[in-house]
């Protein structure tokens, strides 16, 4: 299995970016949907929408600021404007346009950032969005979604298009295991319990969810019962699920493919500190930029593995 997942007998499914592209093309019959692209449509898979609905697709060129502004104007005229690019170019390059033209006036713009995290691999740190969740969470009124697999990305894309308001959907480059083979029950702001347990909880999103399940398998062999939450919505966060985990298990591990600052871990910590202080441990990229390498090498190098999650859980339980 790729991405360091060994114990789960899961088949690799589509990359979340591809699941997004398929879902967007499928749902694109809604005439209100207009897609703007920063000349990466064959990477974000918005090309699938473009093939079906060329009149409602605009490749703005390598100009993310203009792309986001145009999306805001389209939304202002009643369109469901989808702006998709590599997550780092979208969120970092166009951040002020997102702040000023989308978030502040609360426009119905759907930002889709692909190639998130270090699992893009060889292209290296200039292409890796590892700050994007923090940037999106910092925007008042924004909904922030980090799905774990193909089916849940498809479900998230449907919700994204059907729900009014500014949103950010984060997708990855590599193929990922299918966690919801029968389709995902996806509700904004409501975590999915993928495995119940009462010793320790792992809260994860994106590619770290499959790793959390793998870690839970390993810990089960040691007699440790692990609850695994797919916290696909970082904002608004599922406060109830976090508070329950804090009450019902002895500690929480938060795992994400993102910097330590401003992402899922920081958000969970805020909830825990306020509602029910408990022991926490964090699995993330820390406070550093990565390098080039294969996705598997990078995930191992920067400690994003089932083993790292299991170690964190053991630390939580030891204290």
């Amino acid at each position, binding site marked *: 299995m790729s991405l360091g997942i060994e114990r789960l007998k899961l088949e690799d499914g589509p990359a979340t970016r591809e699941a997004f592209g398929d879902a967007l093309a499928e749902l694109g019959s809604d005439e209100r949907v207009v897609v703007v692209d920063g000349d990466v449509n064959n990477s974000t898979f918005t090309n699938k929408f473009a093939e079906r609905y060329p009149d409602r697709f605009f490749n703005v060129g390598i*100009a993310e600021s203009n792309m986001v*502004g*145009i999306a*805001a104007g389209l939304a202002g*005229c009643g369109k469901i404007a989808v702006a998709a690019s590599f997550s780092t170019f979208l969120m970092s390059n166009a951040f002020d*346009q997102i702040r*000023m033209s989308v978030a502040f006036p609360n426009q119905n713009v759907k930002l889709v950032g692909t190639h998130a995290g270090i699992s893009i691999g060889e292209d290296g740190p200039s292409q890796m969005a590892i700050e994007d969740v923090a940037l999106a969470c910092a925007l008042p009124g924004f909904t922030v979604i980090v799905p774990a697999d193909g089916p849940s990305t498809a479900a998230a894309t449907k919700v994204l298009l059907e729900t009014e308001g500014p949103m950010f959907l984060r997708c990855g480059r590599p193929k990922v295991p299918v966690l919801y083979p029968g389709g995902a029950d996806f509700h904004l702001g409501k975590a999915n319990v993928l495995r119940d347990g009462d010793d320790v909880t792992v809260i994860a999103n994106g590619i770290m969810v499959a790793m959390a399940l793998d870690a839970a398998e390993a810990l089960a062999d040691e007699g440790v019962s692990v609850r695994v939450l797919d916290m696909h919505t970082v904002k608004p966060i599922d406060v109830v699920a976090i508070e329950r985990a804090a009450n019902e298990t002895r500690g929480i591990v938060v795992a994400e493919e993102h910097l330590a600052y401003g992402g899922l871990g920081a958000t969970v910590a805020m909830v825990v500190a306020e509602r029910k202080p408990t022991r926490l441990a964090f699995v993330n990229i820390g406070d550093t930029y990565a390098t080039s390498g294969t996705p598997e090498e990078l995930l191992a190098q920067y400690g994003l593995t089932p083993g790292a999650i299991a170690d964190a859980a053991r630390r939580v339980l030891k204290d």
Partner: protein
Amino acid sequence: MEARTEDRAELERITTTLREHIVRSTTKAGSGHPSTSLSMVEIVTVLYFGGVLRYDPKEPRYPDRDRFVLSKGHGAPGLYAVLAEAGFFPVEDLLTLRQLGSPLEGHPNMCRLPGVEASTGSLGQGFSIAIGHALAGKLDGRDYRVYVMVGDGETEQGQVWEAAMFAGNHGLDNLTLIVDRNGHQQTGAVADIQPLDPLDEKLRSFNLEVRTIDGHSLEEVAAGFDWARSVTGKPQAIIANTIKGKGVSLLEAEQGKWHGKPIPPDEEAKALAEVST
């Protein structure tokens, strides 16, 4: 509704009224940008009262309305003055400019004030938003037009040129860019900081149709908009040469020194007298 006032005297009266509003509202607020608002008065007067814009203050968001986007958001006092006179909200509200609780914020907020088509104030963004409006109009088969005003200093922002490239390449003939070329930005003359000439040739090379006018001549402004609406297949740019602080001698005398500064209370009466003559 198309408010068309062919009577030149009436348009002149409106320019005077707008200038009075700009002076009074910013002086009362004790802050704001009167000088950049004063340079755009004739342009917005013709837009809203010279039969250019199609709008309905009773139904500010009706889908077929024309749109005016003020990309140079610090010209808010000028925009608010014309929107109030056009009936989007009571004229008395102008004196709440910048106060806590007032929808007349320091820069335009489309969520709080009827008639504002885009929230602006971070420069360079309005042209792209206007493109979105123009594209939506084309997609929906609506015949509305979109006008967007940028400052000349604002064209130092790269996004303006990203937008110009897109608008030109897509032949958005329902879109008119207005450059309020008052020649000054926050710390001095545009010509000293980032000279723009030849601005008309630059815009033309991005496939816009370009015309340069005297932005304080009601006749030239009206003729400029008539020309813009006659152009097919290309977006248009109207470069309006204007004077920052137009009508108030205190501001006109030192145009580089009054950006973001209201007229002091003890100079207000003189300024109001000047704009009325």
